[in-house]
């Protein structure tokens, strides 16, 4: 080699080096690369989510016809209802491959018309044989559905339509109210505006059917919540005082209350009387401070009761509420949520006749109802015994029931058909058909009944049921217009029907006391399994939604399958998780909430007399205690807040000013810790909004979850918990920015810490240097790691990150940019209002987002603090906590 060769070699190397690939703005996601999202191909639909006790008004946004985002419709007049997680993740079941199944007859796949033909033929044969046919359907809250049912029953007397609620939480309450009011009604106390709430185990912040309604009424800051419970629940953790008691002790405590109220109201001490009723003494005495509180708030107390607890406790709760509210008889409707349950008793009578004489029935059609999920013990035993040729199942998914049934027909999701849903106050919400059915071989439950009725009445209407639905509402009001009805509130009844009032009822207290006495269930707890349905997946249709599994369980922060110990019922309630209660969360189709009380932790010694619905022995999973995805977010460090109020000082101490940030335009967030109840809704909303991958159980165990928000539970000295959501703090002196070697993370002029995914090479020094540990790394390409990855469903405004790239909270920059652009177009740049996804989802309005300048002015500066002020990062996420609370630490 000579010098010329050497020069050539050098030149070619340099040329090759410099002609390397530059970072291009490539579209990593496969969401229709030909189109970019703009105002023209984004549509919003007002519709409702068919939640059982009441429909939930929502807005669904579609991009090129496919829904990608579900929002709370706060504008629907005065009805303020929170959207639970399963509702705003519900669009992910649309393309679920488990759902897109063909109908089966004797486990052989067919198409829809054939399956319907065979079913109708079976009905004809039944008619000829003079046998009965039962349809067991989920209660729909739909006037048109009821009308179709009535027409079918009237035209064909051999048909019996049994409407059942998804979870049977009416039973105890109804039994109690029958004793008191002699009527079929359901009562749920209204907690809005009450100063003090005594709660006998109702987990209304998490696992309760009335969760969407009550969570809005609850004000953690101003209400005193005292919870007595036999399991550990989110409501308990958010209580001012929490007492961990056994079920029988809760009843005794309730009676104790009754005695106190009797004493103060009627100058009559019934303690001796009660003691005679119950052999033995009232074991647990109420603490002095609680008694003082009762005397102080006398007329501002409300009592709640777990819907699954025995009717006796409901009776006592109703009595307590009655006695504590002098004017209750005047405005019962205002203070109570009242539902008419005549349909419920009627259905149960029919169900009884079905269970007594099963041989009279030759066909049992389950319409969207799965007793295995609803934990209907009688029906499950019935199904196990019945001949499989008699069973027909129509459901969204292939479930245990359809494995048994001879005919299975898939149903449609609520996106795919029109329906009407009645709110109990007489308001009608319309459920729109947003997309054409994706599974062509599926049928909606309304359409099924429509076809069935036409067949029975021998009507030759080949039209669609939609016209009939429209005509039905025209008959209520001649001016009916569907478009207006969707947009505005549509009422068919001016006022709620007359309901019995307390004034009309003569309370026979001694007789009621006798009723309460008839309880032999309340022996001290032995080995048994209490089964509570979990509201986190609502019903079977959403239990396959991976988003709901990935979302941390609010109490312990578990993800995916988890078995974890829970406090002993007789403990003092200081959250010690090492004794003989276990909670098991099942991941398969039967996802629900178990509370298992065991004599000790050795699995073999447990007798599962109650274990009729569990396919797998949950305690086999005991070994998994050590492999669960539990992230122990509990911390007892009280020094966390020791350096509060340094916000101002830090600004003075700052060495250099970040000159790029325009202080007028800077964005900031305030998270109100006095309000936050730790429900984890924000985590899920963020995940859906920002296309954050669902990583699955294996990765979750390796702590590779991608959530941009994490909620830490901080245990304070007074054994109270506060929930601390941690997200990117968007620091003014961002430590991540100064160390990035390629400038992939940088600061925008309006103070947002931005991330350029295409420029990132994945050195992860930003993650190392972040003291808050909020940055996440993509270990895998989204299509490989993302369970249930459907490119069409992704938010088109947010790119999908490739392998080897770091990501974090962006303050929903897509929304910020959208609003900024709108403001520029309309010349309204001073008042740009942006709502981040977490803010929208927060049921208690704990998150505020806006321009820093105006946001901080409205707040008391003493209440605000930032995390880790000693690092001088000057975060723009402020945490708010009232000064009195801070002093407790």
């Amino acid at each position, binding site marked *: *080699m*000579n010098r010329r060769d050497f020069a050539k070699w050098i030149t070619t190397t340099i040329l090759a*080096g*410099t002609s*390397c*690939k*530059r*970072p291009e703005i490539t579209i990593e996601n496969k969401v229709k690369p030909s189109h970019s999202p703009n105002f023209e191909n984004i549509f919003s639909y007002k519709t409702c989510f068919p939640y059982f006790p009441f429909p939930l008004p929502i807005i669904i946004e579609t991009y090129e016809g496919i829904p990608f985002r579900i929002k709370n419709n706060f504008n629907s007049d005065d009805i303020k209802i929170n959207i639970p997680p399963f509702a705003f993740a519900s669009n992910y079941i649309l393309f679920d491959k488990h759902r897109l199944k063909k109908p089966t007859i004797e486990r052989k796949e067919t198409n829809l018309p054939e399956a319907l033909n065979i079913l109708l033929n079976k009905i004809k044969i039944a008619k000829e044989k003079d046998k009965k046919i039962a349809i067991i359907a989920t209660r729909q809250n739909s006037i048109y559905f009821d009308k179709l049912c009535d027409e079918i029953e009237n035209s064909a007397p051999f048909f019996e339509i049994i409407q059942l609620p998804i979870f049977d939480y009416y039973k105890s309450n109804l039994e109690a109210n029958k004793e008191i009011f002699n009527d079929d009604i359901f009562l749920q106390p209204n907690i809005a505006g009450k100063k003090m709430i005594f709660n006998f185990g109702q987990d209304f912040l998490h696992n309760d059917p009335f969760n969407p309604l009550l969570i809005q009424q609850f004000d953690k800051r101003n209400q005193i919540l005292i919870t007595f419970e036999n399991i550990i629940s989110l409501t308990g953790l958010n209580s001012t005082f929490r007492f961990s008691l056994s079920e029988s002790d809760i009843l005794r405590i309730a009676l104790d209350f009754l005695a106190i109220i009797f004493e103060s109201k009627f100058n009559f001490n019934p303690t001796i009387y009660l003691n005679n009723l119950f052999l033995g003494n009232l074991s647990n005495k109420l603490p002095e401070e609680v008694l003082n509180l009762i005397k102080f708030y006398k007329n501002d107390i409300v009592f709640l009761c777990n819907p699954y607890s025995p009717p006796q406790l409901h009776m006592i709760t109703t009595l307590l509420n009655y006695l504590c509210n002098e004017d209750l008889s005047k405005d019962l409707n205002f203070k109570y949520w009242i539902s008419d349950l005549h349909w419920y008793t009627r259905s149960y009578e029919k169900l009884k006749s079905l269970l007594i004489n099963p041989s009279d029935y030759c066909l049992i059609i389950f319409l969207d109802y799965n007793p295995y999920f609803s934990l209907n013990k009688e029906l499950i035993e019935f199904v196990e015994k019945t001949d499989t040729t008699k069973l027909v199942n129509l459901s969204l998914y292939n479930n245990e029931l359809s494995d048994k049934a001879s005919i299975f027909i898939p149903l449609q999701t609520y996106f795919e058909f029109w329906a009407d849903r009645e709110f109990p106050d007489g308001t009608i919400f319309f459920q729109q058909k947003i997309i054409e059915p994706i599974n062509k071989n599926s049928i909606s439950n309304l359409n099924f009944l429509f076809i069935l009725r036409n067949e029975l009445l021998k009507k030759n209407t080949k039209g669609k049921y939609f016209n009939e639905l429209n005509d039905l509402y025209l008959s209520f009001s001649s001016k009916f217009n569907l478009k207006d009805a969707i947009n505005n509130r549509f009422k068919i009844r001016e006022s709620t029907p007359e309901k019995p009032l307390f004034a009309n009822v003569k309370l026979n207290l001694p007789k009621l006391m006798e009723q309460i006495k008839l309880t032999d269930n309340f022996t001290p707890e032995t080995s048994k399994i209490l089964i509570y349905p979990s509201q986190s997946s609502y019903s079977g249709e959403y239990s396959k939604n991976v988003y709901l599994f990935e979302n941390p369980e609010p109490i312990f922060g578990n993800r995916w399958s988890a078995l974890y110990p829970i406090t002993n019922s007789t403990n003092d309630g200081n959250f010690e998780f090492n004794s003989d209660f276990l909670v098991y969360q099942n991941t398969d189709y039967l996802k629900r909430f178990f509370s298992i009380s065991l004599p000790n932790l050795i699995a073999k010694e447990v007798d599962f007399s109650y274990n009729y619905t569990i396919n797998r022995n949950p305690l086999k999973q005991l070994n998994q205690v050590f492999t669960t995805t539990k*992230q*122990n*977010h*509990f*911390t007892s*460090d009280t*020094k*966390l807040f020791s350096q509060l109020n340094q916000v101002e000082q830090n600004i003075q101490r700052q060495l250099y000013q970040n000159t790029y940030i325009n202080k007028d335009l800077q964005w900031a967030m305030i998270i109100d810790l006095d309000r936050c109840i730790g429900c984890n809704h924000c985590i899920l909303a963020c995940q859906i909004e920002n296309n954050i991958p669902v990583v699955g159980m294996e990765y979750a165990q*390796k*702590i*590779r*979850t*991608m959530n941009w928000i994490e909620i*830490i539970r*901080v245990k304070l000295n007074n054994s109270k918990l506060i929930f*601390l959501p*941690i997200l990117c703090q968007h620091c003014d002196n961002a*430590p991540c920015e*100064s*160390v*990035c*070697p*390629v*400038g992939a993370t940088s600061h925008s002029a309006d103070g947002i810490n931005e991330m350029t995914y295409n*420029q*990132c*090479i*994945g*050195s*992860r*020094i930003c*993650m*190392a*240097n972040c*003291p*808050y*540990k909020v940055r*996440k*790394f*993509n*270990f*895998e390409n989204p299509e490989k790691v993302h369970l249930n990855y459907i490119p069409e469903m992704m938010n088109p405004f947010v790119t999908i990150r*490739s*392998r*080897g*790239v*770091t990501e974090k909270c962006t303050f929903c920059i897509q929304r910020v940019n959208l609003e900024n652009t709108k403001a520029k177009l309309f010349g309204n740049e001073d008042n740009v209002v942006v709502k981040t996804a977490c803010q929208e989802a927060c049921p208690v309005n704990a998150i505020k987002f806006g321009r820093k300048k105006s946001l901080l002015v409205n707040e008391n500066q003493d209440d605000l603090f930032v*995390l*880790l002020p*000693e*690092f001088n*990062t000057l975060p723009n996420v402020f945490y708010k906590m009232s000064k009195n609370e801070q002093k407790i630490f």
Partner: protein
Amino acid sequence: MNKKFFRSILLIIAVVLTLFGVWGFLYTLIYGLKGWGLTNRTIWGVEIVNFVFWIGNSHAGTLISAILYLLRQDWRNSIHRIAETITIISIMIAATFPFIHLGRPWFFYWLLPLPNQTTVWPIFKSPLVWDVAAVLSYAILSFLFWFIGILPDYKYIKINTTSKLGKSVRSFFSIFWTGSNFNWDEFKWTYHLLAGILTFVVISVHSIVSFDFSVTILPLWHSTMLPIFFVIGAIYSGLALVLLCSSVLNLVSSLGEKITSEARTNLAKLLITFSFILMYFYLIEFFFSYYNLNPQEKFIFNLRFQKEYLWMFVFVIFATFLFPQLLWFTKFRNNNSLQILVSTSILIGMWFERYLLIVPVLSADLITKETFFYSPTIIDLSLTFGSIGFFTLCFYFIGKLIPLVPKFET
């Protein structure tokens, strides 16, 4: 016969480890970092430990050849080429770790200060960019130093001169070296000059590597002590590696007989000195963490007394300080097998010392004060052990090609 047996055993182990490492390397390149033990909390792991460890090992070469050369220590003559060879191989291995450690390694050149036509500007305030510059310049200078040192010996390079490649290699060398007086004159001052430059570089390069940690704001890392601590640790482990290599050479090869026992004894003496310097830094770290009032720093420092790190900490103290004290005794100091044992224990101890420095800081949550346990996977281990195997193989083949003990100086 005996030496050949040892040699072949060593070689077999080296080949197996290298293949194991190659598997891990290819897996990482193809499937990304998912096979590693990293979590979203502990985001740097064994690979960064390996990087720091191998960069550290490379330091002794320069120390012995450059600094001792300038100080006219003639006992270095028999081992300086071994030390330089260690430097070259160590840098080569060390540089691969940050490369595969990137999330998107195919874009590694965005870190280089190339012309900005790609619209990527390396951000010069980032320590990683300094790192690239420091390691690159150290690699280039070390290579030049090693290369120039070989020039007088090029006739002894074992190359098949009948082949075309061999001929061209020979002709390449002969451009530079004819053995004339002019050549020797130029050689002397170039060697001298490079030794002078390298003396600065050897200190700067590991300081800059330590800047990866010390310019962050994390407690315990954010310290002015870190650069000198790193340099001392690096020289210590590098000396141990040189002693290990020369002692093992003595055991497995006839070449080892040419290494003077004086050199090895002096290395052992240096090890004692550096073990005390290092101990001083351990103590001062302890003092800093407890004397200052930063609770975060105390918390992070205390992590090493936690269950999962305590055995590591005890082992580090034992292996890097207590055990090397045996070298005080002349009998032990001159014992070949004890030299191997002590230097191996120092190397393993120094590896764990780096682990203790890097992993606990990242696995701790500063807000909740909880730690997320990090454990290396089989791929992490394959890369670690593979690097050892690769080092041994490279050392063997380079030893085959060039005279590891300089001919012209001894």
